[in-house]
Structure formats: C-alpha cells, structure tokens
C-alpha cells in the first residue's frame, strides 16, 4: 500500500482528470521516475489506489515501451532504427554500441552503468542518426560521439 503522504502526492495528478483511472500513464511515469522501474508491487499498489484490477495496470505497463519492468542502466541509450536514421547509418551505430558495451539490446552492463535498446522513430529525423540518452536527444551520432558518451558516463 502507498503511504497516506504519497497518496496525497498522487492525488495532485489524478485530480486533473474526470476519471481517476485516466491518470494511470502519468502516475506510472511519476513512480518510475522515483524508483527506476515498475515492480509487481507498484502495479498492485496503483491498482488499489485507482480501484482497478491489477491485471489492468499490468496490461498497460507491458503495452507501452517507456515503462521498464526490469532495472535499466544509469545511462540508457534508446537508439532509433527507423528509415531516416537507418539511411544515415543507424546500423553501424547500433553495432558499435554493442561492441563497446558488450551487451545486446535489452541488456544492462554488469556494473549497472549502461543499458541500451533499439527503438522505432523518436520524431527527430532531422538529427539522424540519433538516440535518446536518458531524457536527452543526441543527434548526428558517430562512433566517436558514442565513445565520448560512454567515457563521460563511465
């Protein structure tokens, strides 16, 4: 169960909506921001708070790409592989990241510092090839830029 204090914080989000359950996406974002992932316990707590079945919360968590059910790295790369980025060398960037970090898409390095995923269009084709590094968009990627990013976050 969420504490009364935490519930009050969540109420600030839900009160903007006509129906409490409509706030599920912003609530999940808010919890994930704090805890880094969505655990089965969080799903249970949110279901009780919103008065919906827990399966409903789980279904939403597993439907949307931005919710993580396992812990990701401190620095998470989401690399775009769709057409505009693909035309400008996304495949090479993805290969280079795998070689440098020695992990596959969906994995986290053993020190917990890095993880990476391959994603579809992030709406920044003018920056191709590009990726999202935690909250920030990084464009015109090159092997050198990837190396710098990895060094900066090591």
């Amino acid at each position, binding site marked *: 169960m969420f504490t009364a204090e935490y519930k009050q914080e969540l109420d600030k989000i839900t009160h903007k909506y006509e129906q409490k359950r409509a706030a599920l*996406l*912003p609530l999940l974002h808010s919890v994930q921001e704090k805890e880094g992932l969505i655990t089965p316990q969080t799903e249970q707590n949110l279901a009780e708070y919103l008065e919906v079945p827990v399966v409903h919360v789980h279904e*939403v968590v597993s439907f949307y*790409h931005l919710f993580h059910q396992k812990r990701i790295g401190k620095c998470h790369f*989401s690399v775009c592989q*769709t*057409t505009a980025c693909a035309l400008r060398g996304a495949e090479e960037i993805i290969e280079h990241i795998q070689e440098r970090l020695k992990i596959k898409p969906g994995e986290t390095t053993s020190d917990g510092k890095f993880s990476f995923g391959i994603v579809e269009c992030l*709406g920044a084709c003018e920056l191709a090839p590009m990726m999202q590094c935690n909250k920030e968009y990084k464009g015109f990627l090159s092997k050198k830029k990837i190396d710098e990013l990895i060094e900066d976050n090591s």
Partner: protein
Amino acid sequence: MEKIVTRHFGLGNSHRLESYLKDNGYQAARKALTQMTGLQVIDEVKKSNLRGLGGAGFPTGTKWSFIPQANPKPKYLVINGDEGEPGTFKDKYIFELDPHALLEGIIITCYAIGSHKAYIYIRGEYIKSLERVQAAVDEAYKANYLGKGIMGTGFDIDVVVHPGAGAYICGEETALLESLEGKKGFPRLKPPFPAVVGLFGCPTVINNVETIACVPPIINKGAEWYAKLGSEKNGGNRLFCVSGHVNKPGVYELPNGTTLREIIYEHAGGIPNGRKLKAVIPGGISAPILTPDQLDVKMDFDSLKSIGSMAGSGGIIVMDDTTDMVWAAMVAARFFAHESCGQCSPCREGSGWVYRNIKRLYHGHARPHDLKNLPGIVNNIGGNTICAFGDAVTMSVGSYVTKFRSEFEAKVNKEYAESHH
C-alpha cells in the same frame, strides 16, 4: 514568403508568454471571445480551407461542426501531439518554440465547439516538449489566459498536459482516447465517431498540434488571407519535415502546393555527394513511395492523392541512388511489425509475416514462393482491420514491391531457393 506557424521561432525566448504577447499574443482569442459567436468562428475556419495537418487532411471547420451542441454532456478538445509517424518532427518545434500559439488556438477552438476542457497528449519521449508546454500552461493560468473567466470574459477553460508512453498506435485518434483514459492503446470501432462518443463517452474533437496553431492567425487576419496562401482546397502553409539523404535536413514552412522538387533541391539543399535521387516518401512512412519522375507533384492533399500517394503528416524522407530498396522495404516492414498494436489478426500476424518475408529476401534466404506470396499478404492486411494502420502497411510496403519489383526479383537466390525447396 510570409511565415505563419514558424513566425516566432527565431525570436529569443519565443516559448515565454512575455515574448508571445509582444506580437499581439492572445488578441485572436480576445477577438473570438468578445466579438464572435462560436458558429462564426467555425464558419471562418471552414472558409480558410484549413485541413487537418496530422495526416488525414480532413477540413477542420467541418470537423468542429460535427459536435452535437444539443448534447448535454461536457465536450472535450484533445490535441494529438503523439508525433510518431516516421519522418515527422514538426510538432516538437511548436511545443518547444511557440507553445502559447498552441494554447491560444486551443482557447479559440474550445470556445467554437462549446468545450471547457482540453487535453494536450504529448508523446512521452518528448521530455523537453512536455516541460515547455507545462510551463506555458502554468504561465497562462497565472495571467488568466486559462482558468475561470479568462481575459475578463465569462469563459472558463482548463488545459491538462498528458504524457504518452511510447506507442506509435496512440497517434491514431481513437487509440489516443483510450490511452488518455488510462488504457492500452487499442483503436476503437467507428461509428460511433469521437465527435459524438469520444473521451469519457462525451463529444470530442481531436486535432493535430500544427492545425490548432494555425487558428489564431486565421482569426486575426481572416479566412480569405489564409485560403489564398495555399492551393485550391488546401489553404495556408505547411511545415514540411525533410530527412534522409539531403544536405539540410529540417523543418521548412512553405505554401501547400509547393513542388516536391523545390522542397528537396532548393530548401533542403539537394542530395549529398553529387548523388541522384532514387526514391522519396512524401508524407511519413505510411505514404506510398515516389520515384524521380514524380518530383514535380504539388505537395497538397489532393495532388498527392491524385498520383496514388498521400500528403500525410508532411514527413519527406529522401533516398539516394545507393539505397537498396529491398533493405528500405525491410526497414519499413520492421517498423510496422514492431508497432502493430495486436488487436486485429490480419495486422498483427500480417505485419510480422511481411517483415520476415522481406528479411529473407534481403539476406538471400528466400524460399521459392516468398516473392510470389508477398503481394498477396501485403494486400490482405489493408481494409481488413479496425484502424488505418493496416491500410498503411499495405500502401507503404506494397509500393516498394510494385515500384522496385526488379530489385526484389534480383534478391531471389535461385540456388538457395532450390536447395531449400
């Protein structure tokens, strides 16, 4: 050329209220609320030939007129900012550089349709957009451009900024409504249409960000001025997003009806390294691909439709003559396979089937019947699903196979095919 939606982009702090007010900010909303009726606003927008700039091109004023005013339920305006159509990145600039233009458009639209609540749905990856728009909403509440009795009139309006969570399908308007209600993004069966049964079962208008940002200038300067800027049935300018093999990728505001050739070669700087253009997607990945002989097409909804493609979301992706079109088709098919929501079998199964088929062709592992079967699979997705995603798979992937047939045939590795018969 007169800029409309991008007119403030070069100004310092263009996202701040103070900056927006310097250029007659919120005067169009004041004019609408104090000098016009809702019906007059709708008529003005109808006359301007403003059409939905998210991709469908539906006449905006007509869409607003579908809201049943006699219905006693609350009415909602939902802004679709789930910008996810590959090749499209224009709404992000409006969110980041002129969020108050969007808010002013929202006020005018809500007034026109009799709504007192708007939701702005922004894709979850657009963190900066979410922050900028929320900051603009907070500023507008403080200055009484939003809230109770705005600008000294009796009109109340609330605006909520809602983050998506990474699902292309939520750009489909009924999937977006589901998502906004806290559910997974499964498109709804239509009818009923959202104008009658939309968000929380109430009458709802869903408009794209750029469309709504065009509304204040139309009210300020009049429908005739706006209609004259574009082509016959497609008024105004449009934000064209150009990416792929061009020297200057970016957003270009140009009149509807500008030729594709002018956009690519004059504005986006042409193709790098002296190469030639081989193919171009004119309106986001869902739009059928065009070949070099079609570059003189006028970029508006009707002209693109007449040559078998679509203006879509204004996302232009250019491919030079080094591009392997089977590979390009595979990339597109992979996108659709990844983003199919899974609700309808033809799309869920078909998009994966198409991707695996083209992948085998590309890698030289095609089975004897793969190329023969491909058109049949592709063509049986569209028209057999709840939403237009299935149609997009058929139109988009189908166009590569039809227009670059010889490249697909060249990929069939006869030896491999025969040995795996």
